[in-house]
C-alpha cells in the first residue's frame, strides 16, 4: 500500500493507546525509510502520542465558533474540576484533557468530544455530568 505510514501509526495507536519509541525501528525497517522520517511524522501530527493517555480522553473545542459561546470559561471550569491543564492527564490516570480545533459541531457550540463521542451545547453542568458519568464507568 503506498503512503502506508499514517495508517500504520493510526492502527498502532488504536491497539496500544500510544506509539512506543521501540516501534520506530520496526516501522522504519518495514517501510524502508529512516528512523528520523518515522519520528518526524509522529511528532508532526497532533494526534500521535508517544506516551500512554488517560482512560478517558476529553477534547474541548477551542476554535472561534466555540469561543463565541464561551468555551474559554468552559475550559477553565473543566481544568479546575479535573485539576489539570489542557494537554495533561489526571494523577489517577482517568482523564486526559486535550484542546481540539473544531469538531464540526459549530451550530451547537460549545462542543466537546469524549472518547470519540460528540456532545453539543456543553455548559459547565453538562461537562460535570459527562465527567462524573465517565468516572463511574472508569
Amino acid at each position: 500500500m503506498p503512503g502506508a505510514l499514517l495508517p500504520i501509526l493510526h492502527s498502532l495507536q488504536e491497539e496500544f493507546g500510544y506509539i512506543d519509541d521501540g516501534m520506530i525501528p520496526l516501522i522504519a525497517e518495514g517501510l524502508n525509510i529512516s528512523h528520523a522520517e518515522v519520528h518526524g511524522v509522529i511528532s508532526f501530527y497532533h494526534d500521535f502520542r508517544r506516551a500512554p493517555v488517560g482512560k478517558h480522553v476529553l477534547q474541548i473545542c477551542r476554535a472561534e465558533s466555540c469561543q463565541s459561546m464561551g468555551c474559554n470559561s468552559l475550559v477553565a471550569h473543566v481544568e479546575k474540576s479535573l485539576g489539570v491543564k489542557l494537554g495533561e492527564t489526571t494523577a489517577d490516570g482517568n482523564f486526559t484533557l486535550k484542546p481540539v480545533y473544531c469538531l464540526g459541531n459549530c451550530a451547537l457550540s460549545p462542543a466537546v468530544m469524549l472518547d470519540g463521542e460528540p456532545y453539543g451545547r456543553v455548559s459547565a453542568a453538562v461537562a460535570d455530568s459527562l465527567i462524573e458519568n465517565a468516572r463511574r464507568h472508569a
Partner: protein
Amino acid sequence: MRVFVPGDSSALSMGADAVARALAKARPDVTVVRNGSRGMFWLEPLVEVETPAGRVAYGPVTADAVPGLIDAGFLEGKPHALCLGLTAEIPYFKKQERLTFARCGVTDPLSLTDYVAHGGFRGLERAREMTPEAIVEEVVTSGLRGRGGAGFPTGIKWRTVLKAAGETKYIVCNADEGDSGTFADRMIMEGDPFVLIEGMIIAGLAVGASHGFIYCRSEYPHAFKVTQRAIALAYEKNYLGERAGFDLEIRLGAGAYICGEETSLLESLEGKRGQIRPKPPLPAIEGLFGKPTAVNNVISLATVPIILDKGGAFYRDFGMGKSRGTLTIQIAGNVKHGGLVEKAFGLTLREAIYEFGGGTASGRPLRAVQVGGPLGAYFPESLLDTPLDYEAFTANKGLLGHGGIVVFDDTVDLAQQARFAMEFCAIESCGKCTPCRVGSTRGVEVIDRIVANEDREKNLQVLDDLCEVMLDGSLCALGGLTPYPVLSAVRHFPEDFHASH
C-alpha cells in the same frame, strides 16, 4: 411504518442515539431509519414520521419525551408540543434551494436503493456516455468554483489534469474540513456519502483517473465510518472496483489543520509530514506520488452529479456575478438557529444571520461576524449587507472560504480574537516558510504589547508590517491569510486595541 432519527454527529451530540434506543424499545414494530441531518441543528434530534401527507417533524426530541410522543400518537403525525408540522414546510427548510444537499437528511445514507430512488447515479449514467472533454466542458459551463475556499473553477482544474501527460492520474477529495464554523463536508459524508462517491467516479472519467482517495480529518470519526461503509457497499454492487474502472479509498488525517492545504494533504497521503510544497508545479501536473492529480473539496465533488444530471446551464442559472450555483452556508457560533442553508449565491450576510439564524443565541447585540474560518476577516455590523459572493467578499478585504459564518455578540474582544488568529497560526504552521512559522509567534507577542499599551502606536505599525510580510511572503494560505482576521480586527474594531484593556 418508518421513523427517522438522524445519525449525524450534531444530532448524536444532542442524544439522538438514546432517542433511537427509546423508540426501538417502546415500539419494536417501527422501523427506525438513521438518516442524515436536515441541517436545522437547533432542532436536533429532529425526529420525522412518515405520514400520507408527508414527513412530519418533531424536535428537539429527548429520550424522556419518547413515551409521551407515542401516547400523543406522533407515529400518525398527530399534534404534540414538539410537533413542527410537515418538515418540507418549515420556513428555514422551505426557503432553501437544495441541489447538492437534495437527499441529505431525506434518505438512509447507507441505502443504495434509497440513493437510486432519489435520483442517484443519473449524473454518472450520463457521464458514461460522454467523452472526457465533454464532461469537463459541462463542469466548466456550470461555473462551479472550488467550495473548499479558494474558489478556483473546478472545470478549468479538471481540464489541466485531463491534458496533463501520464498513464496514472488521481482524484483526491479534500475532506479535511478544519475551518471553525463549517460542517457541510461532514454532513454530506454522514448524510449522503454516495453523492460524493458518484462525484469522484465522474471526476475520474473526466480526467482519466482510475484511483481516488478521500482524506478525512480525524476529528470526524463518524463521517469516516459512514463513508468507509458506503465505499464498501459501492464495491459490493460494482459501482466501484474493476468493473466500474474506479477504485476508491478513504484515509484518516491526524489532527493537522495545515493538511487542508492541498499540497500538504498530498504529502500526508504519501505518509510524510504534512509540510506544504511550493507551487509550481501545480498538483494538476505533479500531484500525488508525482502524478497529475485533481484535488477537490467534498462539496465541489458532491455537486458534480447534479451538474451532469441536469446540465451545466441548469446549475449556472443559480447565483450572481461570477459566483454561480448554490452556496452551502453554515450558520454557527452565537446564533439562535444554527445550521446549514443551501441557497443561490447572493443572499446577504444579514439575511443569513437574521432571517435564517434568528439573531444571537445570547439575545445580546451582534458585534462581529467571522466568515470563512480562522483565516477569514472579522466584519462589523456595517458590513452585514455584503452579499455572499466571492467577489463581494474580496472587495471588502474578506473571504467567503468554505461558507462558514461565525456570529459573535457584544461580549467579544477583537484584540483577543486577533491574538488567537496568530496563536492558531503558530500552533498549526507546518514550519516550511519563515513568515508563517516565526511571524505568527512574533504576532502574538506584538498584540500582547499593544494590549498592554507598550509603545502602542509603534507596535501597531510593527503589526502592520508583520502582516504585510506574512501576506506577501508566505508559501500558502495559512501564513498568507492569517493577517485577514488580524488586520480586519484592527481596522473595524480599533477601540478593542486601546490601552484600557
